[in-house]
Each structure stands twice: as C-alpha cells, then as structure tokens.
C-alpha cells in the first residue's frame, strides 16, 4: 500500500494505491488521524490505483468519514473500480460516500 497527500487550500487529495486491508490499514491510520487532527474539511480519497480492499480497509475509510463529518467536513471517494468497487457496491457505501457510483 502506498499513499500520497496533496493539500490545496481547504482541499485535500489523498491517493491510496495497492492493497488496503487488515495488514496495511493500520499503516494508513496515522495518516487519517492527522487529517482529523488538522480538521481538514474537504477530503477526496482517490482509489483509482487501489487493487484490493477488505473489510478492515473499508472500516478505516468509514471511520475517517464519521470523524470528518463530526466537525462538519466531508469525505468523497473517487476512481473506485474492480474489486474495491464490488465491495463498495455490496456494502452499499454509495449511500454514505459522495462521488461513488450507485449499486
């Protein structure tokens, strides 16, 4: 799993690639915690290069969403495809993540 963070004014773009799962989600958690600590209000998570996600990875993203919404911000996801899209559709996450195609 790799990630890059780019800030532009109030906007933050977080790109995650590779695999986001039970092994790598703990590695990403400090990055997500830092976004919350800085109260970033508009976050886009680009998953166009994410190859595989599991329930631990989904849990990390949903946790971020809940915390950011807690202070009035928003998290969008972009570029979801292949196996991650199948998981997002199954869990009907289009209902909570703006920008996600409907099931």
């Amino acid at each position: 799993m790799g990630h890059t963070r780019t800030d532009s004014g109030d906007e933050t773009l977080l790109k995650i690639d590779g695999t986001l799962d039970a092994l790598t989600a703990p590695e990403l958690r400090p990055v997500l915690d830092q976004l919350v600590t800085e109260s970033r209000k508009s976050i886009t998570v680009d998953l166009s290069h994410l190859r595989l996600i599991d329930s631990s990875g989904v849990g990390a993203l949903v946790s971020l969403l809940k915390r950011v919404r807690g202070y009035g911000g928003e998290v969008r996801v972009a570029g979801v495809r292949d196996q991650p899209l199948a998981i997002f559709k199954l869990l009907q996450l289009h209902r909570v993540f703006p920008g996600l195609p409907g099931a």
Partner: protein
Amino acid sequence: MITLSVPGSIEYRDIAVRVIGGACKFVEADDAEQFATEVVSAFSEAFNNIVLHGYRDIRASGTPPGNIEVVIHHRAVDDATRELTIAIKDHGRVFDPAQYVEPPDEMPERGMGLFIIRSFMDELRYQAGPPNVLTLVKRCRQGERKKSAPP
C-alpha cells in the same frame, strides 16, 4: 485438488489469495473476473477472521500461531454448472459464522467480513475442530455458447 499450508499470520494472506485467484480460472466462469473478485474477497475475509480472531489468543501468549491449510476442489456439477469448493482449516479458537448473522449498518466500521463471505459465496459451512474447517462453495452457470463448444 490443490492444497497449501501457510502460517496463520496476515502477512501470508497474499500468497494464499494468489493461489485462490489462480484456482478460479479452472472453473471457466463466463464472467471470470467477477467470479474471481467475489471468491478472492470472501476468502480474504475468512483468512482475516482466522488470523485476527481464531489465533488471537495464541498470538497474544507469545506462541507462534498455527498454520492455515487450504484445500481447493473444482468440479462440474452438471453440463452447465461448475463449482469451486475451498476448505480452510485452522487450529485456533472456534469461530462459528452461524452466530453472526447481522448485516452491516449503513456506516459500518466492523462486522462486515462475514457479510461479504455470505453475499459472495453460495454456501458457507463450519465444523468446529480441531481442526476447525470453514468451507466456502461458489457455483457458476456457463452460457449456451460455452456449453455447446467442443470439449
């Protein structure tokens, strides 16, 4: 039949997933990509459950966790139906999926693994051990064009 045995640590999941993904090709599903996506997703969650829950106490005691053995079969059920069966064996704590039936809520952070397994597989069986055996079964019906193709 394909068998493999890997240490019950999350670092070894990727190796097992690659074997599962390869085994899916033998089923020759019409939509091979979707078939493999669903099987790999379900298997990954099952592997996670064994490592994170089944072997948690053993790992916490400082003892290396036991292995996870995976046995894969594929067969033709009839002229139009193929079936992939994955038996996953462990020596950890009993984790009976039948005790966990709730689907995830709208904003889930936990409890999604079994929901994913149930949704993507056609059958889920569990036999408490040792060894515990979780059996995942997925079938696919092949299209008319493939059915009529010469052997």
